[in-house]
């Protein structure tokens, strides 16, 4: 797709309240389906690099299973310590059932 967006998943691949870990350009991206919509962030916690895909999505909050850091999946911002650095967040474009991502992160 033009403008650098790549097809990564279908909207039916991940139920609301769930996440899906995807490999893309050598990095792990976590696709999150919240009530507010679909969002894509880095899968590795910025604190100690635990996999957020092994944590849980609650509302718009992704919970790290290792030290309990939490991030807002909408923009990758830190919600609780011990993390201090925001997660990279990736713009999505949804056309029909197809989800496209731009891997130039907005705040990496």
């Amino acid at each position, binding site marked *: 797709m033009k403008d650098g967006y790549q097809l990564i998943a279908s909207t039916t691949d991940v139920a609301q309240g769930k996440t899906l870990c995807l490999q893309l350009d050598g990095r792990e991206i976590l696709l999150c389906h919240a009530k507010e919509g679909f969002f894509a962030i880095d899968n590795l916690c910025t604190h100690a690099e635990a996999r957020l895909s092994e944590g849980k999505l609650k509302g718009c909050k992704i919970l790290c299973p290792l*030290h*309990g850091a*939490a991030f807002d999946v909408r923009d990758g911002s830190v919600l609780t310590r011990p993390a201090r650095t925001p997660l990279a967040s990736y713009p999505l474009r949804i056309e029909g059932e197809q989800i496209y991502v731009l891997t130039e992160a907005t705040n990496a």
Partner: protein
Amino acid sequence: MRVHNQVAQGMTKKSSLEPGTARAQGPATRDVLLTDKHAAPSPLLEESPQFLGDEDIPFERYTSQDYFDREMKSLWPRTWQWACREEHLADTGDVQVYDIGRYSIIITRVDEDTIKAYLNTCTHRGTRLLDGEGSHYSQGFTCPFHGWSWHLDGAIRNIPGRWDFPHVTDATHGLQEVLCQRWGGFVFINMDRDAQPLEAYLGVMTEHFDAFPLDRRRIKLHVQKRLPANWKAAQEAFMEAYHNFETHDSPHGANAQYDIFGKYVSRFIHNLGSYSPQALSDYPGDKWRDPPMTEQEMLAGLAVEGRTLAEGETAREVAAQTIRENLGAELGVDLSATSDSIILDSIEYHLFPNMFFFPGIVVPMVYRFRPNGMDVDSCIFDLMLMEPLPDDEEHPEPPEPIHLSVEQSYTEVEELAWLAPVYDEDTGNLQLQTQGFKNAFKGMTLGNYQESRIRRIYLTQEEFMQQAEERS
């Protein structure tokens, strides 16, 4: 003994009755319940008024740092308090962090049958383990300082450089467990490991709520707001309906019923769709009294539009039936046997020190008031709307709380609908009251009946803290 028929004449003058026996004029709440078409369950027909004294209560209780510090030492670490709902902990590894003043508790589902609670503190050098309050998820706990870790059951999982800690065992350095018991779908904690069991503490509530259980409710909405008042002043704004006339411009509640059940539980019941014009006899103006509202007007007040009452029909029975049918269908819940009172009325049980449970359908709230960190003059008000859950459905994932600051209005939460302005009115007096607390020659005066629940909490808290201080 039923005392409300002993109507005091000339309520502006000092009553000639024994203190605490006077009641508002006109029909009492129980009289209304007894005429309901769908009969109220027996706990709602009990009356248990108590006269507990009429001395002023010092405002220092709400403003003093010393009193707040006593609460931190002798109240919060000693009392039962609900921390979350069971559905917050649906899966093994679901975690809730509950903060109360300087204390923080981890509550987690260890397995299908077991929920445990621990102090949120590393047993090595004391670091707080999980930062944010609310939901977390993990198959264990790891301290961010030196990486000590524990299993969900609190046993040590790993200590890096174990050779240096031959003096450390599970018995000495497992997570520090606190009491954790469940009732009505709520998970309660108590930091006092010698506390009486929760069931005994709940008193009449276990039996009463058998008639209107809360475990088959789901959290429809959770709003958590900061309020500019001491936690006790804030909760006391919700403990009587005496303020309804002035604060909410409403006739309902002037004849509300107030019950005291032992030291820890109290209740009010105030009717919707019915009120006593006589109870307003010495309130300013003629509004709602001369002429009184018609049944048709009261029906409109209950948002039942386009339905003309037939001869002999009451607003209460028609509103209850309309809600029974419409809301029952909307929620997929059979409300056919649910009483008019449970459908319509504001029925509020309070559990010491800071918890409120409403078994109603139109008024289905749960409240919790607690200090905002270590600030005497502000608090956190958790408000949850608890919707009936269809019999064949499992609890859905509960919504995350919506946070409102002191300055924000409840009207920013669309789902609150008609309740939003009511909560703005209820909380709108608090800043003024807190200012007034610090600008007075005298203390707080309470009505002997309508404000008896506030005095009950005051007396219980004084006794509770004194006993704790004697023990320590």
